[in-house]
């Protein structure tokens, strides 16, 4: 302990005598204050432990204070006409409070006969909760029906410790309709509990795992309530000390039209693919179907490992949302872009004919037109109406891959549409730079030929193609797809109103868009058009077919579709808008591994468009419930 040297450096300021007097008075007052505070502690301990001690001891021995949590119901999801699509309903569960149980073996045996479950399965639940406080209820049996509830209620006096709890559960009014858009719920996990998004959620509650349920979790989630109750030895409530009622979450009004959605899904029955439609004037989504659907109800009960692996390994791939996660070659629907580029870049006079012989020789290869006999003399209008590959091979060659890519990107391909849902894929617009980086080999000009008709490296999502056809329909505007019209609180107050968002404009003049629309009208309405299957008698429809090759094997070329193995069959595309004069609906249909766009995908689009326009002329809702959770 060093002293020398430093001693002098330290200032010492002593008290002067007058100050010492004053400070001593202050110390006296402080001492009195401290004594008073400790006297209060003493008195309080005396009061709690000696005067009220017996009372508190009794309360602690009975352990009679319980907290009963009541989760807040999630808000409803409604369609654009106010139809409730997803709602919350009360569900009953049977629980057990170990604290109140005398003979747990006997009790579980008795319960198992009432619930028609094996005692072992009930034991399993009890063992799983062994680390929970003994006064917390353990859920033994979820979502039991009213008869069982009545039965248990009747025998409750002989089973102290058994409680019946009410919780809100998700009810899918129209079964699995729009399942991918809504998304499923899952029980909250430890990691999520710590996150900001789930701050009002308690363990054991269900939260949105994907889709809109997740995106709007904060709006949909209710606020849990609960009460502090005093119970007797049998676990029955004697008195309630405080009660906070749970609060429902907000309702979400979608832009979706449930009738169109149903028609779209019905038309896709037994098939795999996507149907997505929107109002091209503002980007509001009208249908959003990814087929086959997933069973949302099943997720509420918790999927078994086997059920999960069944979903993962299903060849129809039900899990991903194909509208934004399915990436396919666009096939001939891409000719819309090649056509726009050819017009804008003036690589050809649209009235100048070329001669299609059925074969397009390029380099040391020959590229075939789908019409082997050839289309003969083809100008631009006929080229698009008959979907002549020869004509667009030539356009592609004249444009070159870079210009093609520029227009594809201008139409929003190659990048996500930035919808609110997760895991949106960006598709692929190939360029020479991309190929060099990806495959370390330079671009072959022949590949440009394939790109021009939507084969080769091109990849798009159904939503991207919907944006392409919408932009053609609405004069070139790329709208951000919008799902939600407004969020409304339980008492009807609008919490948030959503507005259309314009992302960009396509680099095509109004005049050229007009030419394209005219061509697309011909595809559906002219005698040799490939989209005749989408013709409507009341409204003029414009559209484009597409058939996307999955493999280019000569062995599968001429065969009947059904003779080809499923995974090698072509994908069928159809994109359309109507009415041609003043478009108010645009649609993209993709049917996986099914054959030709004109014969497979176009009728699906037709069904939706027909419903849209017939409903418009007779606006009463035609929706029929296809079965909710209660009917199952």
């Amino acid at each position, binding site marked *: 302990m060093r002293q020398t040297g430093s001693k002098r450096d330290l200032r010492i300021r002593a008290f002067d005598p007058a100050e010492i007097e004053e400070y001593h008075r202050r110390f006296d007052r402080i001492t009195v204050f401290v004594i008073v505070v400790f006297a209060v502690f003493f008195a309080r301990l005396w009061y709690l432990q000696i005067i009220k001690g017996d009372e508190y001891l009794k309360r602690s021995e009975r352990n009679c204070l319980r907290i009963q949590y009541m989760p807040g119901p999630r808000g409803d999801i409604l369609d654009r006409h106010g139809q409730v699509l997803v709602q919350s309903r009360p569900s009953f569960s049977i629980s057990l409070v170990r604290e109140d149980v005398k003979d747990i073996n006997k009790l579980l045996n008795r319960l198992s006969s009432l619930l028609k479950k094996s005692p072992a399965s009930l034991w399993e639940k009890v063992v799983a909760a062994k680390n929970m406080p003994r006064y917390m209820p353990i859920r033994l049996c979820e979502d039991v029906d009213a008869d069982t509830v009545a039965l248990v209620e009747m025998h409750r006096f002989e089973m102290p410790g058994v409680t019946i709890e009410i919780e809100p559960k998700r009810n899918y009014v129209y079964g699995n309709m729009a399942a991918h858009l809504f998304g499923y719920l899952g029980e909250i996990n430890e990691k999520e509990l710590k996150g900001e998004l789930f701050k009002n959620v308690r363990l054991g509650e269900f939260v949105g795992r994907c889709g809109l349920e997740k995106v709007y979790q904060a709006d949909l989630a209710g606020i849990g309530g609960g009460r502090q109750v005093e119970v007797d030895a049998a676990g029955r409530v004697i008195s309630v000390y405080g009660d*906070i009622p749970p609060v429902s979450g907000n309702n979400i009004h979608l832009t979706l039209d449930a009738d169109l959605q149903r028609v779209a899904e019905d038309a896709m029955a037994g098939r795999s693919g996507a149907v997505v439609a929107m109002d091209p004037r503002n980007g509001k989504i009208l249908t959003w179907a990814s087929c086959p659907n997933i069973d949302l109800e099943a997720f509420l009960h918790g999927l078994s490992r086997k059920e999960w692996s069944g979903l993962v390994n299903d060849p129809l791939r039900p899990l991903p949302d194909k509208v934004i996660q399915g990436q396919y070659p666009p096939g001939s629907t891409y000719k819309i872009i090649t056509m726009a580029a050819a017009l804008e870049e003036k690589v050809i006079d649209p009235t100048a004919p070329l001669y299609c012989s059925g074969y397009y020789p390029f380099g040391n290869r020959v590229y075939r037109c789908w019409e082997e006999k050839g289309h003969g003399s083809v100008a631009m209008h006929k080229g698009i109406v008959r979907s002549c590959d020869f004509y667009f091979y030539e356009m592609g060659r004249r444009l070159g891959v870079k210009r093609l890519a520029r227009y594809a990107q201008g139409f929003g391909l190659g990048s996500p549409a930035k919808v609110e849902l997760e895991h949106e894929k960006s598709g692929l617009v190939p360029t020479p730079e991309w190929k060099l980086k990806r495959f370390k080999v330079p671009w072959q000009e022949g590949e440009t030929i394939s790109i021009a008709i939507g084969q080769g490296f091109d990849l798009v999502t159904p939503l991207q193609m919907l944006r392409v056809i919408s932009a053609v329909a609405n004069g070139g505007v790329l709208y951000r797809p919008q799902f939600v019209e407004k969020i409304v609180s339980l008492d009807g107050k609008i919490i948030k109103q959503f507005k259309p968002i314009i992302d960009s404009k396509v680099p095509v003049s109004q005049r050229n868009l007009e030419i394209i629309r005219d061509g697309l009208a011909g595809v559906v309405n002219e005698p040799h058009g490939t989209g005749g299957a989408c013709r409507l008698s009341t409204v003029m429809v414009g559209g484009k077919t597409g058939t996307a090759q999955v493999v280019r094997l000569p062995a599968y070329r001429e065969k009947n579709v059904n003779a080809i193995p499923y995974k090698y069959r072509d994908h069928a595309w159809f994109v359309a808008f109507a009415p041609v004069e003043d478009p108010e609906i645009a649609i993209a249909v993709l049917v996986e591994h099914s054959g030709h766009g004109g014969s497979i995908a176009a009728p699906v689009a037709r069904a939706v468009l027909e419903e849209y326009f017939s409903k418009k002329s007779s606006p009463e809702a035609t929706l029929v419930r296809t079965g909710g959770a209660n009917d199952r």
Partner: protein
Amino acid sequence: MIDRRYITNFDWPLLGVVLLLSMLGVLNLYSAGYSATGSATTVYLRQLYWLGLSGVIMIVVLSFDYRRIAEWAPYIYAGSIITLVAVLFVGKTVSGSQRWLGFGSLVFQPSELAKLATVIALASYFYHKDVKKGYGLSDLLAPAGIVLLPFILIVKEPDLGTSLLLLFILASMVLFVGIKWGAFLTLLGFGLTSVPFIWSLLKDYQKKRVESFLWPERDPLGSGYHALQSKIAVGSGKILGKGYLAGSQSKLDFLPEQHTDFAFSVFAEEWGFMGSILLIILYFLLILLALQVAIRSKEKFGTFLAFGILAMIFWHLVVNVGMVLGLMPVVGVPLPLISYGGSSAITTLTGIGLLLNIRMRRFMLQKGP
């Protein structure tokens, strides 16, 4: 060679009381973790490690003349502000509050040490700024600033309990060093009018705690429940308690935070009125002995510093015991030496080390310059 006078002037009773309290604390933490499953049982061991580390720090603190601290005050203060800022950027978040800095497996709470640093800064300021007839408003601007900076940083974490303690410490010290009547009344008026403003700054859950203290029936699920369970635990201890390791309230997990904020409830339940009173008396002795250190220091810095440390420990005590006994809202403040907490142990024992330091160097100053 150690000067023999250090030994004869050493405050052995103060050290004895502190050791006794620390031992009771470890004993109590063993019980608090006793029936709980899993990791909780090692809490008392971790507390022992922390106490050992704190003891080493305490010895280091004894080894130099405490008056050096007056010179170091700006650096100590600046260092603690830097760690508080660091906590906001790289701090670990535990149950919604970002209060901890991690060094490998060690976790430290800078706001604990900030209290001590602020006390040192305040004592140093009042020591250097000598005013004969009480401090006026302009003299108090600097101390207000000294407290406001860590106060704001700690409120942001958020840690309402610690930031409130800072205000209590400031108020105690200002009243102690003497304030002009005019300044006192102005500050009182200003303080009262700013209550609604401060209220509006509180987080919802903090408002709820105050509300549930004033109207317990409003929050039966949150702090109202905790307060009631704590009262039941304390009350059910009666005269002799339920016996060590036999507290049923705490064992059945009715009590939240039984290692930290509600450690005293566990103790009161198991040791009853007799035990609780013993503990309270030990704290009373601790405060009185600390007061003696302040009173008997022969120079001003020692007096101011000792008083500041005393105020820090005292207010911890008042807020925690008041909360456990249902006399105050539920605010997360540890009970020095009894609650689990490494940062709290280090801060408290460093403070005690400074008190012992002031006390044992008293003799050197018997003749002023």
